[in-house]
């Protein structure tokens, strides 16, 4: 990194003696001023809370400690500001973060918000809509879906299950749920749960499982008596390959965020790229098992998006597959749109892959499930597939179990 000009440091010092150190991680004066202001606001809040509890309210010391952490953090580069402040914004939500659990990213919030808005605007939805979030981390995805959906619409019961292999993540996700439930704006509808499980292991692998290891997803669903069938599957799994971790991943991410959340585990005979992609085949199988109608998977870039889209195409069940960029709600400028095997939506880096089938098309506002914008995909209409492979699901949108629970009643789509 280039050294900061002395004139800039001097200028910063003239404004506030705590600014020059923050210029290190921030690089420019405006960002440094913003960070310092946020840190101050945080310190004010903390000391007010302490004061009302009868403690002392020494602000200066706390502020200096936070600045020091941000700047050195005991490592060559400072810790992420969000770990110091304890929260990060995700859409309109303030989500609690902790070292050991990945800090939610704005790109994820943008795709989840876009998906939720599409579904929210659907004319007809099942009376209960089930959303499975694999690799949930802080729980930010289900919590944001809930927020965006219920801010406008309340005729649907949303059921969420967030799954993670890390008990730290599950504890934090539950904490975030409790925290939001206490806030005034929370709409008390639907069910949100989190569950410990491993989405990568095959339950039939003949590898011995240690007793303290989390159960494979399917076994965990059964064991915890969770629903087996879901409508939407969302996942932001670890997707960075080992070489990309070394070369294109920011130092503060490498140094402070959990590798478990970023890089899929290696396996003998796996190439670097295959390792980066390791979660997607398992997620796509889980999507089939759960009979979901919409799948949204986050990816690292356009190349990975293509690989994942092709994997999904290979499952031969989807009526449509498209790739979303960072800002899927923005019209692309049209200038540099390469002719592509899959439609590419929005602006920015390739960020996620969306697949749908059957009623999923309607929930997304696609024209009657026509495969019109599914590009050159040749796919059987869902109803046909249904009669071949799933004789029990004549009403393609009914979960067999809820169908029984409701005596064929209200899950009409």
């Amino acid at each position, binding site marked *: 990194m280039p050294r900061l000009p002395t004139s800039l440091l001097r200028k910063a010092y003239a*404004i*506030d003696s705590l*600014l020059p150190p923050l210029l290190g991680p*921030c690089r420019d004066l*405006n*960002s440094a*001023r*913003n*960070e*310092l*202001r*946020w*840190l*101050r606001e945080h310190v004010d809040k903390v000391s007010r809370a302490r004061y009302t509890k009868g403690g002392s309210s020494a602000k200066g010391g706390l502020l200096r400690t936070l600045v020091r952490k941000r700047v050195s953090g005991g490592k060559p580069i400072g810790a*992420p500001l*969000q770990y110091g402040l304890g929260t*990060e*914004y995700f*859409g*309109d*939500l*303030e989500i609690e973060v902790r070292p050991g659990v990945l*800090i939610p*990213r*704005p*790109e*994820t*919030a*943008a795709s989840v918000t876009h998906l939720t808005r599409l579904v929210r*605007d659907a*004319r007809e*939805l099942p009376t209960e809509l089930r959303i499975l979030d694999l690799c949930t981390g802080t729980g930010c995805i289900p919590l944001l879906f809930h927020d965006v959906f219920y*801010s*406008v*619409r309340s*005729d649907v019961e949303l059921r969420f299950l967030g799954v993670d292999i890390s008990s730290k993540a599950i504890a934090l996700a539950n904490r975030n749920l409790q925290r939001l439930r206490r806030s*005034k*704006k929370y709409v008390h509808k639907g069910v949100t749960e989190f569950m410990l499980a491993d989405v990568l292991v095959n339950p039939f692998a003949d590898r011995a499982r240690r007793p303290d290891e989390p159960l494979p997803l399917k076994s965990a669903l059964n064991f915890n008596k969770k629903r087996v069938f879901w409508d939407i599957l969302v996942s932001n799994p*670890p*997707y*960075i390959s080992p070489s*990309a971790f070394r070369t*294109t*991943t920011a130092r*503060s*991410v490498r140094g402070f*965020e959990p590798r478990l959340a*970023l890089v899929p585990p290696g396996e003998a005979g796996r190439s670097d790229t295959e390792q980066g992609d390791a979660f997607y085949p398992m997620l796509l199988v889980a999507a089939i098992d759960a009979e979901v109608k919409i799948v949204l998977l*986050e*990816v*690292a870039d356009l190349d990975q998006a293509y690989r994942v889209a092709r994997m999904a195409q290979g499952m031969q069940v989807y009526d449509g597959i498209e790739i979303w*960029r*960072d*800002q899927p709600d*923005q*019209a692309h400028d049209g200038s540099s749109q390469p002719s592509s095997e899959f439609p590419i939506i929005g*602006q*920015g*880096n390739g*960020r996620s892959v969306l697949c749908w089938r059957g009623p999923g098309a309607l929930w997304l506002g696609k024209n009657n499930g026509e495969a019109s914008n599914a590009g050159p995909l040749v796919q059987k209409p869902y109803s046909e597939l249904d009669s071949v492979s799933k004789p029990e699901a004549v009403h393609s949108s009914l979960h067999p179990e809820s169908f029984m629970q409701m005596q064929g009643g209200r899950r009409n789509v």
Partner: protein
Amino acid sequence: MQRLVPLLRLPSLRRSAPILGLRQSNIHPCPRLFTASCRPAAKNLPPRRVIHDSEIEENFLKGSGPGGQKINKTSSAVQLKHLATGIVVKYQDTRSRSLNRKNARMILGEKLEELEKGEESRVRVKAREKSRKKASSTKKKRRKYRGLEGAKDEVADEEGLEGVEESAGTSESEAKDLAKDGTAGKAGGAG
């Protein structure tokens, strides 16, 4: 099932404590119900300029370089460019990107309206009304304040932050609620 009409909601007011702190007391008496009667002062103001998505280019997630899990930036800056006039509004004062977006849109709306309607714009009408009402001592104080803040954030003009809106599609009654007086346009304060 029916299609819902996504109007008349202003969830952001309740979530926006960090920058709206100053305004909270103003908002308090009528937190949820947005009718004209709630804010009689806003009655004579021209309607808020609605910004359509097609009019602007919005930039907040850098398109170049890696993103997603690979980086973790704290900047939640939002930049709007109005395509027809080339006016650019950048907003980065809060940690919440969605709040920055809303504020940027509102500021752009006011700039455009002023440009399009001149003396008849909300900003001017309000300013005139206020200068009539306010005592001169208050005025002096404000001028000094503005002088201090203006250098830092030229877009957060006098009423830049008086409220927030969900999106371009602000309904009229919401707009009226947002209208109010314009005292708190200074959340751009430095640390």
